[in-house]
C-alpha cells in the first residue's frame, strides 16, 4: 500500500510530465517533413562565431532524420523537460508533510524510515523510467507516419541514458527533501543546479559528452562511439551515494 500512497502523491507530476514529453516528441516527429522541405533553403552560414557554429551544427544534423530527432528532441526538448520533471519527482516526502499533512500518520505505521524512503524512491525512479522510455519509444511507433524509421534498440539506448542521468537530478532533490521541510526549496535548488550544469556545458563544450547533459542526450552513442557505460556507471554511483545520504539524513530527523 505504500507504493500506492507514493504514486498518489506524485501522480500528477508524473502524468503531466509524461503527457508533455509525449506531445513534444510527437510534435517534433510530425514537424519533420516541413523542416526537411525548408532545409535546402538554409543559406550558407558564417561559422566563425559560436552562434553560427551551433546553427550550422543543427542544420547539418537535421539533414538526416536520425540527426534531426537527436538535435531537436533528444538533445534539447526531452533533456530539458526530463531534467525538470526528475527534479519535481524527487521533491516532497516526509519532511515536507510534517505539518499536518500526513507525516505523523505515516510515522505511526509499523514501517521503518528506510522502507518509507525506499518505497518513495523506487516509485519515483519507476516514474522517471517511464518518462525516460515511453516518449522515446514513441519514436519507432510514429516515425513511419512521416515516412521514416527509428530503431527500437536506438530508442532503448537513449532511454537508458535519459534514465541514468535523470536519476542524478532526482536523487539530488530526494536528498534536498530530507534537509528542507517544504517542497519548494528542494525544487528551486534542484533546478538551479540543473541550470548551472547547463551553463557549465555551454562554457566548456569540449567536455560536453562527459557532462550530465552529454550523458543524458546520449551524444556519444549518437555519434557512433557506443554506449557511455563509464559515465552511466558514474551517474548511478552518484545517485546511489545521494540516496544513501538521504536515508541517513532521514533517520536522524526529528518530527
Amino acid at each position, binding site marked *: *500500500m505504500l507504493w*500506492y*500512497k507514493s504514486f*498518489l*502523491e506524485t501522480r500528477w507530476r508524473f502524468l503531466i510530465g509524461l503527457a508533455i514529453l509525449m506531445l513534444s516528441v510527437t510534435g517534433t516527429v510530425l514537424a519533420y517533413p516541413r523542416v526537411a522541405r525548408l532545409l535546402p533553403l538554409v543559406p550558407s552560414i558564417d561559422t566563425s562565431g559560436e552562434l553560427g557554429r551551433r546553427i550550422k551544427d543543427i542544420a547539418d544534423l537535421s539533414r538526416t532524420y536520425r540527426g534531426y530527432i537527436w538535435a531537436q528532441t533528444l538533445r534539447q526538448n526531452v533533456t530539458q523537460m526530463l531534467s525538470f520533471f526528475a527534479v519535481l519527482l524527487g521533491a516532497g516526502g516526509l519532511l515536507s508533510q510534517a*505539518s*499536518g*499533512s*500526513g*507525516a*505523523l*500518520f505515516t*510515522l*505511526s*505505521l*509499523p*514501517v*521503518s*524510515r528506510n522502507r518509507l524512503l525506499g518505497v518513495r524512491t523506487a516509485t519515483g525512479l519507476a516514474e522517471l523510467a517511464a518518462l525516460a522510455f515511453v516518449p522515446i519509444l514513441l519514436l519507432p511507433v510514429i516515425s513511419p507516419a512521416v515516412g521514416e524509421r527509428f530503431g527500437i534498440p536506438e530508442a532503448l539506448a537513449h532511454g537508458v541514458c535519459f534514465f541514468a542521468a535523470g536519476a542524478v537530478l532526482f536523487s539530488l532533490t530526494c536528498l534536498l527533501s530530507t534537509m528542507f521541510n517544504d517542497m519548494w526549496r528542494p525544487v528551486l535548488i534542484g533546478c538551479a543546479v540543473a541550470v548551472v550544469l547547463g551553463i557549465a556545458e555551454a562554457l566548456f563544450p569540449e567536455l560536453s559528452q562527459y557532462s550530465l547533459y552529454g550523458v543524458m542526450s546520449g551524444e556519444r552513442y549518437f555519434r557512433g562511439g557506443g554506449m557511455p557505460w563509464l559515465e552511466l556507471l558514474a551517474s548511478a554511483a552518484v545517485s546511489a551515494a545521494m540516496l544513501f545520504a538521504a536515508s541517513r539524513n532521514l*533517520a*536522524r530527523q*526529528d*518530527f
Partner: protein
Amino acid sequence: MSEPFVIETSELRKQYDGVEALRGLSLQVPAGSIYGFLGRNGAGKTTTIKLLLGMARPTSGTAMVFGRPSTLEAASVEIRRRIGFVSDQKDLYDYMTVDEMIRFTAPFFPRWRADLEQRYRRSFELPADRKVKALSRGMRTKLALLLALCRGAELLILDEPTSGLDPAMTEEVLQSLVAHVASEEMTVFFSSHQIAEVDQIGDHVAIIDRGRTVVAGALDDLRDQYRRIELVFAGDAPEATFRSPGVERVRRKGRVLTVLSSAGSDRFVAEARALNPVSVDVAAVTLKEIFLETVVGEA
C-alpha cells in the same frame, strides 16, 4: 500484556534548537489503565508522545514501551505494530478518500479488526467516498479514531483527541472511547489540557509542567491523598515551615494560611495545631484544583 508498565520513561530530556522541551520526565503507565497526560500548551505532551513513537530521539534518558526502547528503530517498528495513535492535528492523507484511508491502513496491522471497522463505519457515519480534505473537523477526528481503534492495538496513544471539537462532538468521541476500552483489553494514554476530560474518563493521571512530571498517580489515590487545609489565626498568619510530608503549597493571606497537602491531612493538622490556629478546615480537592495549584501555581 505481561509488563506491569506499558510505558516507562526515566529522566527523559529533549532539546530542540537550544529549547528544552523535556527536562527529565519520568512516567510509569500501568497496563490496563486509562492514563490522562495533563499539561498546559507547550508543557511537553506532544514531544513525549513523539519520543514514545520513535518520531523523535531523546537528548538523554530512556523511553520504554512494552518493555522495549522506543529509540531503537527495529524495536520502534514492533512497538508501533501494537499501538493505535491519533495525533493532535488528526494527521491523515488529504488526497485519499475515507475508504482509501481505511484500505491503506488495514494491511499494516495483522490484527486489524474488520468487525470493529464495520461497526465504527456505521456508528460514525463516515462517508466512504469523500476525500479526507473535505471532511469536517469532527468527521476527521472520527476517521482518525476509527483507524486507531481498529488496529487491534494493545495501547492507544491519543494526543489531544478532542482538540477543536464542539462539546457535543467531544462527548461523542469520549463515549466511543470509553465504550471501546470497556469491551477491549487495552491501555489508553491520552494527552489533554482539558482537566474535565481526564477527570471523566481517566483512572490515572500525570500532570506535567515545563517538561517535568509534577504529579502522577491513580486518580482515586490523588483524590484520597490531596487535601486543602485552611488555618485561620486570631492575628496575621505566621510564617511557618512545616516538616510534615506532602506539603506542596503554602499560601499566607492575612489571617489565613492555606496549605495543599499530597499526603492526607492528619500529620499536618497535628503539626499545625502547635501554631494555635483559631480554626482548622480540611477539604478534599478536585483534579482541577490539584492542576491549578501544581501547574499554574508554579508559573
